[in-house]
């Protein structure tokens, strides 16, 4: 994947030695320590800014409702209430949270698998097959990246309700399968990762286009496939607007809509403050899989964000 960004291999390493020696020569050392210290201080402060809300979330998930009000937010209370809170979240309202969690996982997995396969097929065709209307079709697809999502969600809702699909999983999954950006990424990726000679050799050997795609192309496109998979998974897991519009039955809510609903309830009836801990602990649970995924699949999302921008 690093190659895709056309990074010269070993470039950064070579650069380091060159630059440190250059710095020494030009007297970068003079006053360098205070500058270095200030920069480091700034970077650490920024790190605190970005991470502290999540720290607050972790700390607060271990507190009771009363302790949320009576103890300082950025440190733990004397007693540890996380297990009780988890129990409350999973059992409240007959365990509706479990339904939302499963819904989110189900929507995200199916959408991500489907969308990345569809985008790979299309991106491969755009990159490696020539056909009439190719550039026009691609331009139209790219153009739709700019369409506001309300302009889309409201008519999608009306059309889905006409065919009786509102309040079904399909109402969330089917629209999520369309990723113009994924097609764009796969096209760029396939252009760079698939040598034409290889495909032509297979053609000369008499392999059908279909066989070439499944046996040769898909294997070489795997890193791009995973990138689109990851981005679509996150996109669907985090999606709020579409499910908000196309479902009004809590049994079909994903986590985002469900938690927003709990939040609304907890704010509306300030008497039932138990919902505060539910929202906080529920938020923590819904964030954890994504953070783990991002940490472990770094090179894929970084590649995805990168090769979108490098080709201008």
């Amino acid at each position, binding site marked *: 994947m690093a190659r895709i960004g056309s990074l010269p291999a070993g470039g950064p390493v070579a650069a380091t030695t060159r630059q440190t020696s250059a710095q020494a020569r030009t007297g970068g050392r003079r006053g360098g320590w205070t500058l270095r210290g200030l920069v480091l201080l700034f970077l650490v402060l920024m790190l605190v800014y970005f991470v502290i809300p999540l720290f607050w979330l972790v700390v607060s998930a271990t507190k009771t409702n009363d302790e949320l009000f009576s103890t300082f937010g950025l440190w733990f209370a004397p007693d540890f209430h996380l297990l009780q809170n988890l129990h409350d979240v999973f059992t409240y309202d007959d365990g509706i949270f479990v339904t939302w969690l499963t819904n989110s996982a189900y929507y995200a997995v199916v959408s991500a698998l489907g969308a990345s396969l569809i985008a790979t097929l299309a991106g491969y065709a755009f990159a490696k097959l020539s056909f009439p209307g190719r550039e026009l079709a691609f331009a139209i697809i790219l153009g739709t990246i700019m369409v506001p999502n309300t302009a889309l969600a409201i*008519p999608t809702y009306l059309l889905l309700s006409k065919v009786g699909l509102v309040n079904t999983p399909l109402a969330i999954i089917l629209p999520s399968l369309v990723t113009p950006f994924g097609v764009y990424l796969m096209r760029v990726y396939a252009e760079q990762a698939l040598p034409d000679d290889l495909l032509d050799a297979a053609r000369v050997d008499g392999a059908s286009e279909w066989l070439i795609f499944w046996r040769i192309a898909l294997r070489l496109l795997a890193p791009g496939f995973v990138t689109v998979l990851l981005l679509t998974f996150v996109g669907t897991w985090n999606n709020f607007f579409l499910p908000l519009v196309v479902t009004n039955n809590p049994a079909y809510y994903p986590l985002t809509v469900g938690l927003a609903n709990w939040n609304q309830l907890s704010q509306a009836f300030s008497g039932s403050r138990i919902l505060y801990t539910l929202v906080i602990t529920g*938020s923590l649970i819904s964030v954890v899989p994504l953070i783990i995924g991002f940490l472990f699949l770094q090179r894929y999302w970084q590649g995805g964000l990168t090769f979108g921008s490098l080709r201008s």
Partner: protein
Amino acid sequence: MIPSQDMAKHSQAEARQQAIEIQELAAPASRLPSALRFWRGWRRQVVIPYLFLLPFLLLFSFFLLVPLLYALWTSFFVERLIGGMTFVGWQNYQEVLRDGNFWEGVRNVLLLLFTQVPLMLGLSLLLALLLDSQIVRLKTIFRLGYFLPYAIPSVIGALLWGYLYSAHIGPFAQLAELLHWPPPPFLSAAGLLPSIANILTWQWTGYNMVILYAALQAIPPELYDAARVDGASGWEIARRIKIPLIAPALVLTVVFSIIGTLQLFNEPQIMTAIVPNLIQDHYTPNLYAYNLAFTNQQYNYAAAVSFVLGAVVFVFSYVFMLVTYRRGQR
């Protein structure tokens, strides 16, 4: 794309085409009747590529093109108690253009666009440059830490900051109380927009930084050598070499920010639950369209609002790209 690359690509494609044609000529296909040959060519050049595209094009049509056209269609109608659906032409659009609520929403998102977006992208650029420079170690930790908020669903981000802003359980208010200060007015009429701007900055700075950082890493280090020999400082190199070279990536982040900010919805929607009397149903144009459609059932008018918003988004992105393109030409 660079022209020479394009040409190389072109000739490559031609050579490929020739190879395939020769192969087909050599194959028994040459002895086949011409109708069958025609079919084979057609199959290879049209049928098979479109079969690959079929799943995407089908879904794309059903869930993008058709809804868009349908929304456009409905935006020209009005639902009347007597007479039902009536075609009214541009009337809904004329109404949107005169609608104070719509423009108030536009004003809010434009305020964010001209204050929050430059601040956020400036911060992203600064962080990317610092992490790209040789002064900093442990880059991975900083990069991951800054990027982490992007992994949080924006709904959760808004909920989280809603609690942090709270005058009761928020740590800022608690600190203020400790010091006998009044609680900071995050959720007041005047503080609301800056509070939302902060949520957006928190969530998106790292994402933009990663894009810019990747572009910086792709610059061949040889380019810095000449400048170093001339005694250029790190800041001069950043200003004269690095920033101009990553201009395409910067343009990309600006365009994405324009599109995202003008369509703002999740954060104000969540804030509505927390401070219901501060956020009107038309706080942003997207929120307005949503409430028109699903609270007031005014689907036709909501569609018109969405399209005018789409036009505003298009104009701003397009004008921005035009301006930067012109500058690049000079």
